[in-house]
Structure formats: structure tokens, C-alpha cells
């Protein structure tokens, strides 16, 4: 997989993540997010393990305990930022909350610098553009937000940035499918522990129906098994900062879905001009990160 292909895969991952809202519409609100997380992660891990058993066994033989410990770290980080986002989003309306996810883009280069890793000039330009987009989109709606909401989201974004940096490092050393399976397993265990505490009836508390089962199944293989694994593969070739900038496109995709999909699938929202301008800045920031200007320059000079 070359850099162009990795970037395309990351765009696809972001697109899959952006459809979460549509899939969640099939799952009733009284199903706890931890229940959804446990069931979908467990199904995804089972599917991947069944399909790639030999590959996983070989990697486990090679990497041993190290990969387990690393996945434990990734799983804990993921669970932590998921919980932060879950509670942080209660302080925002849906569209504003979605834009706050993108703060990760701004936090990540700072995390990289504190870890003494270099960040490209191009990446900084992209970060500034994406940040401008977020400020535009959030604009006046931030004025009425409680500070606690922002603090929780900021901590969540910092943990998420740390997750991406570590994932990017580990993806270059380990087999992507094995990483993906163990991240799902750790995620499932943590989610189940919290689910049992919050809702001791666990499976008995879920209002099972064909639609709920379909929704959970789609989420499991589409968002967890497919998108997460594709993400780990792409991380092998991408930089953490570059990947995070591409992830910020999630809000752009979400805006598109809410504007174009039929009402029986999603609550239709006509984006405000500020949202559109914000989204355009985010797209511009992502394009600068995706386009390989050096390669274009090389091709031009070759022609000259």
C-alpha cells in the first residue's frame, strides 16, 4: 500500500465512521452505548479471528506478550476517550458536539511535539485551516456552552490524539489484523464491565428486534471489523498527524448525510452557512495533507 492508497483508505474509514449516526438510528435509545460497544466489538473480533486465525496465531507467536500489552494500552485509551465524549457531548447540541471531535486535529501535533516527534510544515498549515473551520462552524454556539463541556471534550480529544499516535507506532511494528482483533477484545471486555455495573440485567434489558439485531450486526462488521482494520493497515503508511487531519472530514460527511439522505434514515438538518464555510476549510486542510506536492513538483521538473 503506497501513501496515496493509505490516504484513500483513511478517507474510507472516516466515511464509515460518519455513518454511525445512521446505523445508531436502528438501535433504540434505551440500549446503553456500552452494550452496543460490547456486542459489536465482540462480534467483530469473532469475525476477524475466524477469518484470519492462522495469521493471528503466527503474529502472536512472533510478538508474544508485547502485542497484548500494547493492545491493552490502546483499548484503555479508546475506552477512556469514548467515555469522555459520551459525557462531554451532553453539554452540546448534536452539530456543535460533532465539530468538537475535530479538536483532536489541533491537539495531536502538540502531543507529538511533547513526545519529541517532528511535525511537517504542511501539517501545521492543515491544522490551522481545520482549526479555522472548526471555529467558523462552532462560532456563536460556543458562547452559550458550559466550560465543563469543553474541558471534558478537550481531555477526550487529548486521549484520542494519544491513541492515534500510539496506534500509528504499533501499526508499523505489528500485524494489522492481530492489532485490530485485540483492540476489539480489550474494548469488549472494558465495555462489558461497565455495562454490567450500569445495567445488571445486561442482555435481558435490550429490546431485541430484527432491526436492533441488524443494526448491531451492521455496526460490528462495517464500522468495527472493516473500518477499524482498514484504519490499522493505512496507519502503517500514514503519519499520525496526517491521518487525524483526514479524520476531521468526518464532520463534513455527517453534514452531507444530514442534508441529502431521506428522513426515514436520518433527522434531516439543513446546514447553516457557517457550517458550510467551516466544512470547506476542513476539506481544504485535508486536501493539503493528502496531496503529495513533492511528487507533483518532481513530475513537473521531469517534464521540463
Amino acid at each position, binding site marked *: 500500500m503506497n501513501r496515496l492508497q493509505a490516504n484513500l*483508505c483513511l478517507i*474510507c474509514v472516516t466515511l464509515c465512521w460518519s455513518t454511525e449516526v445512521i446505523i445508531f438510528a436502528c438501535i433504540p435509545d434505551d440500549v446503553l452505548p456500552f452494550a452496543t460497544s460490547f456486542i459489536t466489538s465482540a462480534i467483530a473480533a469473532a469475525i476477524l479471528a475466524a477469518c484470519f486465525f492462522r495469521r493471528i496465531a503466527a503474529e502472536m507467536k512472533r510478538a508474544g506478550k508485547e502485542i497484548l500489552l500494547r493492545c491493552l494500552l490502546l483499548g484503555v485509551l479508546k475506552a477512556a476517550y469514548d467515555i469522555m465524549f459520551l459525557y462531554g457531548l451532553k453539554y452540546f447540541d448534536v452539530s456543535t458536539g460533532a465539530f468538537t471531535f475535530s479538536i483532536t486535529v489541533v491537539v495531536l501535533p502538540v502531543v507529538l511535539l511533547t513526545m519529541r516527534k517532528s511535525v511537517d510544515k504542511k501539517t501545521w498549515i492543515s491544522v490551522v485551516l481545520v482549526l479555522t473551520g472548526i471555529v467558523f462552524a462552532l462560532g456563536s454556539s460556543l458562547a452559550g456552552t458550559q466550560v465543563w463541556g469543553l474541558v471534558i471534550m478537550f481531555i477526550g480529544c487529548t486521549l484520542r490524539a494519544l491513541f492515534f499516535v500510539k496506534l500509528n507506532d504499533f501499526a508499523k511494528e505489528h500485524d494489522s489484523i492481530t492489532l485490530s482483533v485485540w483492540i476489539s477484545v480489550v474494548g469488549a471486555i472494558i465495555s462489558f464491565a461497565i455495562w454490567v455495573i450500569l445495567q445488571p440485567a445486561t442482555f435481558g434489558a435490550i429490546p431485541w428486534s*430484527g432491526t436492533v439485531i*441488524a443494526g448491531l450486526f*451492521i455496526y460490528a462488521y462495517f464500522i468495527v471489523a472493516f473500518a477499524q482494520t482498514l484504519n490499522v493497515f493505512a496507519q502503517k503508511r500514514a503519519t499520525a498527524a496526517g491521518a487525524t487531519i483526514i479524520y476531521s472530514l468526518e464532520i463534513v460527511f455527517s453534514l452531507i448525510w444530514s442534508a441529502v439522505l431521506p428522513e426515514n434514515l436520518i433527522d434531516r438538518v439543513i446546514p447553516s452557512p457557517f457550517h458550510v464555510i467551516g466544512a470547506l476549510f476542513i476539506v481544504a486542510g485535508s486536501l493539503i495533507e493528502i496531496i503529495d506536492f513533492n511528487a507533483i513538483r518532481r513530475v513537473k521538473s521531469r517534464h521540463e
Partner: protein
Amino acid sequence: MVLILTAVYLVVAVPFKVMSVIPGFADIRPVLMLNPVYGIFFGIPGCIAFAIGNLIGDLLSDSLRWSSIGGFIANFIGPFLFYVYWNKISKTPFSLRTGKNLLKQLCVTVVTAVAETIIITPMVELSYPEVSSILFAKTVMLNVSVFPIVLGIPLMILMQEELHFTPKPFSKKKNALR
């Protein structure tokens, strides 16, 4: 091979039947990302599996109608066009490593989408005049073009580059005849 591929198709397709645009006729179908995958990596067995999978999917979701015949034909032709293009028409072997080849894949996808829409829509229009054929055609066109591009291309990159699947060539016998 056909059985396995059909089963994979159904596992991906059936749950999405809960997301219907025109109940019984058109739904959101990410399974169409498998359209080029089945054609390019599995050849004729892939094309057959794709068509059968679509037919069984209609049957399982209680949407088997006369227009399903058109659906069967279109869903065979879809992957077949990808198979033919990369084996007979393209001068370079299948690979999505360059912008040029990505553009080729994009064009074939659009051609496939147009072909499938032209086959299915009149069948639905003739059999069920009450269904909005414009909305139906738009849904088919979007499904058949968007999913093979946004999901199918990354999936094929993953399969070829990382999981080491190789595109299915035309059979040796046919190659010898060429």
C-alpha cells in the same frame, strides 16, 4: 467458490434491508462495494455469486418481484464489466497504485452504474408503474456508483496490497485462443 461468495454477499447485504428508501424496491446497499471485487478477483464465479446473492437477498427480504429478473441480469453484468475491462480492454494489469488506474476504475464504475440502471429501471417501470421511476433510477445509480468507489476501492487496495489476492485472469484456454 460460488457458494462461499454468495454466502458472504448475503451476510453483508441482508442486515441493510432495514434501511429502505422505497420499501420493497430500493434500499441503501453497501454490499455493492463487492461489485468490482467479485468481478476482478473471482471472475465468472464471482459474477454468478453476485447475481444469485442479489436474488436470494430479494427472496429473504420479501421483495422478490418480476423486476428481480432485471436485477439478476444487471447484477451479473455489473461485476462482469469490471472483469472484462481489466482483462481485455485495459492495457495495464489491474492495480490501484496510480492516479491513472484509479481514474480508469472510476470510469468503469460509472459505466457499470449506467448499464445497471438502464437494465433495472425499465423492468420496475413496466411491472410497477406506481413506483417513482426517477427516484428508483437515482437510487440505483447512486448505489451502484458510490459504494464501489468509496468502499470498493479501499477494499480492493486492502485485498491486493495487504492480503495478497490476485486478480482473476481469463481462463488459460481462452487466452490460448486469443
